[in-house]
């Protein structure tokens, strides 16, 4: 699914400067434990987390994750947004809980 479609369907906000509406996501992964993300998430996944620190950008970049949704109203650190911009990773924030985000993504067919 194209990320611009996600933005229409979910109450999410683009947090950083980098945004490309044509970025697509296929499947997803949810965890706050970075080694589990490294080991189990797949390239092209959307990653749902409540971590807002800059190491999430490095992990996403190495795994090939193009979109991170930071749930629960957590705001990413400034350094996180800078790194994500450098790595061309889209960071979205939402007040929805991680549980709600994943449920909504699943309903949209991102499984």
């Amino acid at each position: 699914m194209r990320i611009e479609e996600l933005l229409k369907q979910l109450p999410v906000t683009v947090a950083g400067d980098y945004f490309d509406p044509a970025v697509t996501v296929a499947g997803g992964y949810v965890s706050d434990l970075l080694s589990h993300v490294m080991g189990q998430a797949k390239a092209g996944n959307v990653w749902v987390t409540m971590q807002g620190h800059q190491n999430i950008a490095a992990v996403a970049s190495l795994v090939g994750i193009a979109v991170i949704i930071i749930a629960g109203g957590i705001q990413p650190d400034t350094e996180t947004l800078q790194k994500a911009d450098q790595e061309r990773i889209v960071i979205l924030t939402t007040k929805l809980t991680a549980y709600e985000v994943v449920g909504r993504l699943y309903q949209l067919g991102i499984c």
Partner: protein
Amino acid sequence: MIKLKDNQKILLEFNLAGSAFDLAGEASSKIKRVLQQIGVATEVIRRIAISSYEAEMNVIIHACCGVMRAEIYPNRTEIQVEDQGPGIADIALAMQEGFSTAPDFVREMGFGAGMGLPNMVRCSDQFDIQSQIGKGTTVLMVINH
């Protein structure tokens, strides 16, 4: 794209500083970019990136400093990480999934899940670890392309 000849290798070396969480992953990202430039398969790059990132993080979390060397050959990548740190008392225990000695502030960042060494083993074709208490730990990983 650059193509490596049979007898060529690329050597990358990085100094790692303990507790430098702001730089975490930079060495692994540089290795990944070189592998992309020489046309290594995406799935192989993923295994190398996971192996190197986990090893890099272990130095940053546990040691005072370390060196990561990546030797990239046409058919394989060898990653050696040598740190000056506390060493590992029981390697077999440290290799178990879920076992971690990471401090709480590191766990709160999502590290220290006890998956670092198991991830390295799973992603490498060869894995070797040597450790001396009070001196440090050396990890060698070979990933075939």
